[in-house]
């Protein structure tokens, strides 16, 4: 008997009610059938992304125009069967049955014309669920090149629904598809008609029915046979070879991330400069006071801190989309699976983990590449442990303090930070998959899609959409958190200390006779005032209050404030320390600045930065979760605050523990 996917397989769907709401179309199909490309063609770039209720599976919802009618299109995850026990199949079943949301009025089943028999099984399952459908026969151009031909009228009759040939990559057949959608919404063909064709007596399985449909409706020498494609065979041999495949993979990834770093740095610098000028301009036109500080430091500073990631996000998704379109990524997953499976991660996890070296945010946003939910959650959890580019200024700062005149050792310490982060991520993944996300990994069984020329348009649309999606998050939650953190660091206001006032008076007296000296004195006065304000702010007071917690790690109240403020974003640490220690600049490559910081003293008179303290801080920054934007993106990708909370608590605890061991261990060894 054929498996049923719904208890309602024998009932007629209710007659379509007059649409008070926008008609909803579900887009369904096997993976690699061009479903997303078709969605982008139908809906353009302006669509919403949201998790399906109670899941980490993301749905894209867009609108398309068919004549005078607006349609809502829901892009369901790619599935091979609705009846499988896999999370994406469950999500599709729930969406098609209207569980947790409105039931779709119609489904578009995207069929790969080159592989029709396997794809038709999904259509049969859909008919049993009572959802009327239109079949979009995609990639007909490729199928025809392979010698296949389609008797469309016969196929429509056999399937009991309209069959529309399309080439989603080029946009061919879309007008006809839209017309068919309207027609089906007005007078839907009964799915029951097709269910009757699925007579269990004649066809014991859906596969046998599908084979008969292909035999009756598809012509061509290779309609039911396997074609031998020697180029594909050779490429697969090379790309999955243990040695050659690894070399190709390393070359591809090096190229990808080189392009990412080089190209993204240009717009990132531009964004920083633009917001810098905007801040200066605002400071010049708005009168001094709380409003100006809020605008300059809170709003503009907060937006700049988030938007600066945008080029990396867009570029990464653009490049990944091109790479995925070629069909290479599926092969690469096997290459990396040999290594990552030892740590409980699938080969797919490599791209998000590698991306996290640029920034954990795009890394986490790219985890939908990973098919299994447990694997995906594990990857999200450990991705921020990979050393991102925001840690680089802190690493430079601390390694320069640790090994001032020994660049080789400084370089080794720098590389060690990356190694420590990656090791912590892999070990954490292994532990996670054996504890809180226990369960067997999905066996590495993957369809290897045909090699294709990537679609530039599709890649641009995906990059644009990911950018917009990130900005929506950055403009709301991240912005709100930035404002709170700014307020904690800036309030309550305190009057400048007496030394600062005195310096300013001296500067005013010298402004005409010795303008350079006056500028220096003003700068020193500003630094003293900033330090005093920071120390008396809520953050400063909190730092003093919880100083005993960080004392075993070797941190005084100033370092504690630096660590606390860097929970907003870790790169803030350097500038906070520069302000607190009156270094005059956060340019850590400047010898004068480093000297001032290195010789800075604690309230008790001892140096703030001993060897042991610097090493402890370095370890802390490698392992700590100090990026609110990452936490917000984790919340968005997992659909729950539980995971970012776990990430924060786990990484902070890990950082504390290892920093403690480092500091106390070095002290025991006599290093101070």
């Amino acid at each position, binding site marked *: 008997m054929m498996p049923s996917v719904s208890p309602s397989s024998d009932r007629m769907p209710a007659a379509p009610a007059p649409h008070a709401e926008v008609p909803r179309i579900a887009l369904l199909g096997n993976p690699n059938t061009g479903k997303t490309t078709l969605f982008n063609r139908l809906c353009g770039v302006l669509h919403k992304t949201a998790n399906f209720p109670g899941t980490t599976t993301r749905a894209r919802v867009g609108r398309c125009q068919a004549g005078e009618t607006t349609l809502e299109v829901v892009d369901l995850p790619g599935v091979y069967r609705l009846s499988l026990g896999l999370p994406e199949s469950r999500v599709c079943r729930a969406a098609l049955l209207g569980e947790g949301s409105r039931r779709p009025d119609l489904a578009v089943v995207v069929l790969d014309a080159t592989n029709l028999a396997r794809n038709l099984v999904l259509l049969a399952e859909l008919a049993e669920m009572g959802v009327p459908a239109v079949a979009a026969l995609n990639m007909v151009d490729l199928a025809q090149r392979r010698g296949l031909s*389609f008797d469309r009228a016969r196929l429509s009759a056999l399937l009991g629904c309209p069959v529309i040939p399309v080439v989603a990559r080029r946009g061919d057949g879309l007008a006809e598809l839209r017309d068919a959608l309207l027609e089906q919404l007005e007078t839907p063909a009964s799915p029951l008609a097709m269910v009757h064709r699925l007579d269990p007596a004649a066809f014991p399985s859906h596969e046998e029915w599908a084979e008969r449909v292909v035999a009756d409706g598809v*012509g061509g020498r290779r309609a039911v046979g396997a074609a031998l494609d020697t180029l594909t065979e050779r490429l*697969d041999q090379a790309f999955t070879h243990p040695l050659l495949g690894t070399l190709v993979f390393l070359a591809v990834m090096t190229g990808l991330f080189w392009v990412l770093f080089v190209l993204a740095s240009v717009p990132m610098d531009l964004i920083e400069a633009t917001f810098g000028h905007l801040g200066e301009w605002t400071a010049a036109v708005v009168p001094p006071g709380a409003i100006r500080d809020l605008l300059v430091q809170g709003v503009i500073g907060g937006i700049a801190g988030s938007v600066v990631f945008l080029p990396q996000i867009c570029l990464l998704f653009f490049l990944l989309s091109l790479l995925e379109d070629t069909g290479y990524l599926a092969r690469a997953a096997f290459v990396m699976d040999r290594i990552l499976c030892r740590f409980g991660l699938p080969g797919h996890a490599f791209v998000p983990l590698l991306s996290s070296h640029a920034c954990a945010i795009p890394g986490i946003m790219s985890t939908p590449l990973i098919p299994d939910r447990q694997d995906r959650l594990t990857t999200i959890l450990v991705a921020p442990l990979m050393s991102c580019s925001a840690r680089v200024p802190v690493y430079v700062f601390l390694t320069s303090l640790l090994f001032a005149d020994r660049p080789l050792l400084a370089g080794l310490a720098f590389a060690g930070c990356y190694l420590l982060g990656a090791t912590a991520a892999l070990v954490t993944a292994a532990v996670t998959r054996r504890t809180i996300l226990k369960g067997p990994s999905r066996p*590495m069984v*993957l369809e*290897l899609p045909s090699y294709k020329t990537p679609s530039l348009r599709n890649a641009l649309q995906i990059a644009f959409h990911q950018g917009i999606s990130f900005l929506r998050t950055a403009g709301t939650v991240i912005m709100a958190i930035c404002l709170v953190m700014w307020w904690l660091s800036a309030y309550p206001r305190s009057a400048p200390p007496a030394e600062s006032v005195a310096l300013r008076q001296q500067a005013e007296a010298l402004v005409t006779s010795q303008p350079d000296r006056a500028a220096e004195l003003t700068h020193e006065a500003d630094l003293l005032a900033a330090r005093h304000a920071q120390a008396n702010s809520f953050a400063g007071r909190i730092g003093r209050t919880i100083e005993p917690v960080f004392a075993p790690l070797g941190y005084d109240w100033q370092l504690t404030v630096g660590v606390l403020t860097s929970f907003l974003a870790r790169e803030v640490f350097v500038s906070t320390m520069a302000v607190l220690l009156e270094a005059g600049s956060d340019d850590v490559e400047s010898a004068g600045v480093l000297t001032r910081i290195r010789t800075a003293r604690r309230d008790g008179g001892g140096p703030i930065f001993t060897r042991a303290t610097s090493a402890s801080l370095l370890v802390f920054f490698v392992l700590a979760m100090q990026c609110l934007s990452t936490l917000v993106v984790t919340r968005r990708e997992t659909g729950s605050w539980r995971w970012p909370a776990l990430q924060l608590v786990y990484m902070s605890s890990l950082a504390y523990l290892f920093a403690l061991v480092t500091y106390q261990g070095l002290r025991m060894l006599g290093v101070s």
Partner: protein
Amino acid sequence: MSSPAPRPRPLPDVLSDALPVQLTDLAAGAEARLHAANLGDDDFALLEALGMTRRCRFRVCKVGDPWIVQIRETRIGLAASVARRILVVPDAVL
């Protein structure tokens, strides 16, 4: 859109006299059919959904990790750990 294809050749009830062997025992180019797989229900169902059913002949395209097999137009990569758990009936006598 043109004329329909000729019917596929009928599949024999008894596929082969050969005894089932591990997929990993086959050489590249060999053809076989699925006999059984020592996998979980969901994993086995996934294999079937990809087209690797008892009725469908497949060709071994690449041996090693991963194993690559082709069923009609679908190429499937299988980690060696999975391939070892799949029993197949070689098609040599058909």
